């Protein structure tokens, strides 16, 4: 497997930040009340991760070991603020929804973890790819979790798309279950824990099946000698 392919595989499946490394759970659990919220925060995180990995990697040899953490935090905080200001200026309603969680990307462990464990040791191109793929892996988890909670909790999909992309996208909001009165548990924080648990269980199950395939039919009945 080539380098880039392996990085993608790591980010999306093997080392997925959402369901394997379990890093950055605070936003994962808090904002995933709908697909749009989950994807928006996920993409913002992916962007920050790609940018911070890309910014740290070229200067990794000039940063003395003692100050590497302050420097990394400085880089990440600056980039997050840039994204926060941009979203505030150009997608005000989305900013209202994601609110505090954008600035909080700074303290999302997954960002610093990838800078420290990957970007500080690898050249810029793979480092950026790693940041982006890890972010994308997180985005996918946030999207699925958001989708589950939204369908179960509100009976819709893609609600709030107009907030992110503009009023003309309102028509894309899908009502899965018409005249649904909502299932509050899914929207409240416990629903996030339950949903994430299901995702982790599913991933473990899939991984287990892959590593030892189900025995052939009849194989289980082999008489013991």
């Amino acid at each position, binding site marked *: 497997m080539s380098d880039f392919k392996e990085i993608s595989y790591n980010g999306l499946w093997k080392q997925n930040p959402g369901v394997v490394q379990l890093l950055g759970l605070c936003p994962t659990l808090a904002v995933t009340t709908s697909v749009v919220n989950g994807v928006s925060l996920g993409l913002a995180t992916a962007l920050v991760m790609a940018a911070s990995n890309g910014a740290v990697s070229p200067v990794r040899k000039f940063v003395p070991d003692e100050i590497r953490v*302050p420097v990394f935090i400085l880089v990440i905080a*600056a980039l997050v603020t*840039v994204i926060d*200001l941009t979203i505030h200026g150009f997608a005000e309603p989305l900013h209202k929804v994601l609110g505090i969680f954008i600035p909080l990307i700074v303290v999302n462990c997954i960002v610093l973890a990838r800078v420290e464990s990957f970007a500080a040791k690898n050249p810029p191109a793979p480092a950026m790819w790693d940041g982006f793929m890890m972010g994308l892996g997180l985005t996918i988890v946030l999207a699925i979790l958001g989708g589950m909670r939204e369908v179960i909790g509100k009976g819709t999909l893609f609600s709030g798309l107009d907030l992110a992309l503009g009023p003309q996208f309102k028509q894309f909001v899908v009502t899965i279950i018409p005249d649904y009165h909502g299932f509050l548990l899914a*929207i409240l924080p416990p629903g996030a824990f339950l949903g994430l648990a299901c995702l982790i269980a599913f991933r473990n199950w899939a991984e287990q099946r892959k590593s030892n395939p189900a025995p052939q039919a009849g194989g289980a009945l082999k008489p013991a000698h």
Partner: protein
Amino acid sequence: MSERIFQHTRKTALTLIAFAFVFTTLLAYVFQITKAPIAKAEAEARLALFRQIVPESMHDNDLLKDSITIAPNDLLGNKQASIANRAYLNDRPAAVILEVIAHDGYSGDIKLLIAIRADGTISGVRVLTHKETPGLGDYIDIAKGNWIKLFDNESLTKTSEQNWKVKKDGGLFDYMAGATITPRAVVKAVHQALQYFEANKQALFA
């Protein structure tokens, strides 16, 4: 040996300063270029909210620009000076938009925006921020229900003093079962805002 430590420390400090400088510059630059769009977006969001409670046909002035600062008052529930925006039609007072805080919600303050016409009737009420229980008390939010529209065209003369309560307390205002505290707080806050308006009408449009 001490010479080497000194050199190393200096190099470390300079590196940190260099990074701080570069990224502060970047931030300052981004702040400058996003300042105008952010101010514009916020003004637009505010105006969109005003539009819901003061229809365009009711005024011909710039709502955002025509504002006065009013002193904190117990009837408004605020401890700091707040902004009131005024609507005029043909230079005659049409309505005033007050920011009101209800402290007795179920969890935390409920911030309201109340538009009162010059004749003392309510043009509209909207919830700005609240922390009421999702699914129970959050129907006061226009995004979750039409309850808040009950106040449209209400006034101190239309509904008498003792009827400015939720039905459970012997008043006229409907509420949804399971969450009485939230609407009770909102009804009280709106009632008090009307009383404030009656007492300070002259000053508000001065």
